[in-house]
Structure formats: C-alpha cells, structure tokens
C-alpha cells in the first residue's frame, strides 16, 4: 500500500524571532511519549512552539459500525475497548443507556458493585497516567511504583470477572455475576493499604523541585477557555471549576456516597496533577463506603426478556427454555427511541448515545469521548512553550487514543 497523499506540510517561510526560519517538525505517530499513536505537526521557532496541529485517526477501529452489526448484549464486549484504561466505566455508560431505553433499573447491590468497579478503574487509570507522566518527565521510578498498585487492582478485576483489563463485567440489566468473598477480602486489604501508597507518590513528586519546575506554569488553560473549548474532567477541574458528573448528574447510586470534588485554582499541569492525586484519595474513600454499606440482594434485574434464566430452571420450565433460546439466538429488542447517558471517567465526560429502531441490533451507537474534545485544547495550552514542555502538556491532557479515534 503506497503512502497516501496525506497532509501537505507547507513551509511557511516566515522568519522566526531570532532571524531563523520556522521549522516544521513531525512528531509521531510512532513516538514513545505521545501516549499512543498521535501525530503532531509542530511549527517551531527555535525551541518555541508557534503552531500545533494534531493528526488523529491512526487507531480508528470502526467500533461504532461494529456495534451496529452486533446484538445489544454482544455490544458490551466492544465497549470495553475504546477507552482502554477504564473499561468498566465504558461498560457502565452503555449499560445505563440501554437500561434507560428499556425502562429498567439495576438492583441496589448491582449499583454498589458498579460503583466499586468504577472507582477501582478510576484509580487504575490515574495510576497509569501518573506512572507514564513520571516516566516521560524523567521520574522513572514512578512507573514501577504505580504499576505495582495497578497490578493489585488487576488481580481484583480478575477475581471478580476473570479478566485483568477488559472485564465486560457491567452489562445491561446488572452485572455479570456476584462478587466472591475473596474479592471483598482483597478489596478490604487494598483500601487499607492504598492511602499510604498515595502518600508515597506525593512524597516523591509534590515538593520535588524538578517536578515543580517542569509542571508549574506549563500548559495554562484559563477557566473561560476550558468552558469554551468543552473540556471536562481534570482539565476543567484543574482550572477551578467544580464540574463533576458524579455530583451534578448522579448515576448508579453515587448520591449515597460522601466525597469531595477535587479542584485546583492553578490552571496548569501542576494543578491537574494535584487534582488527580486528590481524586485517587477520594476514590479510596468511596470504595471504603461502598464496601461498608454494600446491600444484599440480586445482582441482576429480574426480567426474563432481558437476561437468561438460571440453568436449574431450564430443567423444569418450558418458558425458561424459550426465553433462553430467544435470548441466545436473536437477542432482546429495545423499544425505539434514543437516549444519551454520560458518566465521569478518569478523563472527563464519557457518554453513550444510542438510537434504537426497535430491532435486536442498534441503529446507531455514538460514544462521546472525553479525550476527543480535550485534545482540541492542546493548541491553546501549548502555544509559545518549549518543545520539551509539549511532552508535559500532552501528558497532562491524559488522552487515550483509542477513545479519540474509536
């Protein structure tokens, strides 16, 4: 396959500030520090950035088209894989949207388990961010420490669903299966140990002069800019605006838990770092509360038109056999209509907009991805900074290219 015509890079011919020419440099898509396959075309005047143009699409997977060809219950597997650092949160957005259209609500125990998985994933996603950001700015040991904790979280994922990363645990109608007693032991031990680990990370970085000089004043995004550019998540909370979907439009029982919204008035990379550290601490608080107040009961909605009957019933009841057959051959149908549900992921507002035409496959599934919108703020944040700061700025935006390209 020959190289496509691609983007024409014109040399501007402008003169730079010190008499030199503006140099156009291509970063990526194969680049160690761009957090995935992101290509940046950067106009440089010496070391200063005059213009940044992100080129995306190198990870376009056709997820939205793929979901139109799969049945409603099969689509859960594919939703895991677009924002691959927080799969249960993607599952949650899709499951809530389908349940809203079907008019059912998951039982309280399922909602609590969903909150537990979401917060564990938020921690895991922030740990990857902290580890890779530290690695790119030179703090290589951060990678080892953060991934050590992340491994504990992945072990818990494996205990509850069998998968380390792409759990497909949260499904329309409830969750895949109840959690084992061993899962609760592991979660209890983790919740006790995690605050000390976050203290370790703060010891290493927060007052570290190198970290501070590389992140303070870098990547400024004023609150007005953040609102105009549609940024969500730590990007807007790091500019002082306390916008968190878990508080403003609560879902899945979040209104029952007591936690603070992490904000920082610094508006720069350091502020966003502090926001994410605080979010990790709040996530541990929510996990403690969810574990202590976990209600008993079923983990799936009791609707045979949506979820298969237990296997023992198949031996005695004819309707159970018919339901089982219909569900596993054709799948359930969702009434016509459309709905949009947004959840708060580690990156910001991750939402799922589904359109149903009454059949057993969706008409359209659209994922509103936080990284797609946050990446558009890159140009505003990176202008007139040095090239080396660009790495810090891409890191602070915490974009996941799977989410951007879908």
């Amino acid at each position, binding site marked *: 396959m020959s190289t496509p015509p691609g983007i024409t890079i014109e040399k501007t011919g402008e003169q730079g500030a010190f008499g030199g020419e503006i140099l156009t440099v291509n970063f990526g898509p194969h680049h160690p520090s761009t957090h995935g396959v992101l290509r940046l075309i950067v106009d440089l005047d010496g070391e200063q950035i005059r213009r940044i143009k992100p080129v995306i699409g190198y990870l376009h997977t056709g997820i939205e088209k793929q979901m139109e060809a799969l049945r409603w219950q099969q689509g859960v597997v594919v939703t895991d894989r677009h924002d*691959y650092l927080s799969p249960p949160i993607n599952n949650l957005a899709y499951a809530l949207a389908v349940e809203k259209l079907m008019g059912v609500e998951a039982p309280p125990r399922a909602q609590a388990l969903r909150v537990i998985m979401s917060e564990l994933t938020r921690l895991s996603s922030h740990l990857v961010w902290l580890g890779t950001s530290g690695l790119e700015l030179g703090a290589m040991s951060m990678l080892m420490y953060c991934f050590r904790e992340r491994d504990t979280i992945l072990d818990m994922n494996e205990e509850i669903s069998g998968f*380390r990363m792409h759990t497909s645990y949260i499904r329309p109608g409830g969750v895949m299966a109840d959690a084992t007693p061993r899962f609760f032991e592991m979660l209890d031990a983790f919740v006790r140990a995690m605050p000390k680990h976050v203290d370790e990370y703060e010891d290493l970085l927060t007052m570290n002069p190198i970290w501070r000089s590389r992140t303070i004043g870098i990547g400024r995004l004023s609150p007005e800019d953040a609102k105009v550019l549609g940024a969500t998540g730590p990007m807007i909370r790091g500019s002082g605006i306390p916008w968190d979907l878990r508080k403003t439009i609560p879902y899945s029982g979040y209104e029952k838990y007591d936690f603070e919204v992490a904000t920082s008035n610094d508006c720069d990379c350091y502020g966003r770092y502090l926001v994410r550290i605080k979010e990790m601490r709040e996530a541990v608080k929510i996990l403690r509360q969810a574990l202590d107040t976990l209600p008993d009961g079923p983990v799936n909605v009791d609707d045979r038109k949506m979820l298969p009957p237990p296997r023992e019933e198949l031996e005695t009841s004819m309707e159970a056999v018919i339901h089982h057959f219909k569900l596993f051959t054709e799948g359930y149908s969702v009434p016509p209509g459309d709905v949009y549900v947004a959840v708060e992921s580690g990156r910001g507002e991750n939402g799922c907009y589904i359109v149903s035409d009454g059949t057993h496959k969706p008409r359209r599934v659209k994922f509103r991805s936080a990284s797609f919108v946050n990446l558009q703020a890159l140009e505003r944040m990176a202008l007139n900074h040095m090239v080396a700061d660009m790495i810090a700025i891409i890191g602070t935006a915490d974009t996941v290219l799977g989410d951007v390209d879908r």
Partner: protein
Amino acid sequence: MGLEDLADSMGKNFLTTTLGKVVGWGRGNSVWPAQFGLACCAIEMIATATASVDIARFGSEAMRASPRQADLMIVSGRVSQKMAPVLRTVYDQMPEPKWVISMGACASTGGVFNNYALLQGVDKIVPVDVYVPGCPPRPEDLLNALMILQERIKAQGITPRS
C-alpha cells in the same frame, strides 16, 4: 606442539563450541524491542517491563524508541488502515536480523473487530515469528513468547532467516 599441548598448558580454562552457537547465544539473550505500542496491549507490554514481571531479566530492558537500534518489534494493539504504512516503514527501518512478535488477538488476526477499519492481522504486511493470543495477553504470556523467540534465535545460528 599443537593445539592440544597449548590447551593443556593453560589448564582447564577452555570451552569449545561452534561460532553459530555463540552468536545465537549473544543475540538471543539481548533482544532489544522497539516499542510499537498501539492500544490496550501496549499497557500490558508496559506492565511486562515493570517490577513484578520483569522483562529486563531476559535481556530486553532497553525498549528502544528508535527502530534503528532495535531488533524486535512487538506489535501490540490493533493496526488501522491509516497506521499500516507507518508500521511497514518502521519495520523497514530496523536493521537485520529482526524479528516480530504479534501480541494480542487484534495484531494476530484482527481480534474482536472484523470490519473495514482494521487490518485483519499484522502478518498481512510484515512476517511474524511468534503470535501471542489474548485480549490482552497476560504479561507472563508475552514473556513466554519472548522465551520461545529466544530459543528460536539461539537455534538459528549465524545466518537468520533470509
């Protein structure tokens, strides 16, 4: 005179082997991957380099960013239509001898996604030595693949596959 007398005078300090085995031993124990992390499998590849599943003990500590200094390309993640020429260019930039591990279901066969946007397997554009199934494979799976590749490299001797 002769080699035997010379060897006897040095004591039992000689090993004899073939050049192929020495070269294979050297190449196999210091395989430097070119990080080609694309998607979710890349996170598990990073996890393979961390402390609990340490790939450095197998000689692959130095994950080079530049393909010119690497001899193994671990394709970890799904390869889209736009990325395919880039992947082939990076593969061409690697000097011989070079090997490819296709990590994960998407890189091996297209994985969960059978559609217009993805290459159904990276072996459509580069020759692959070891395929690792999984979505994503455990870090230990990748390590197993590396060990299989190491056995193969050691057995190849001086001239790897042409």
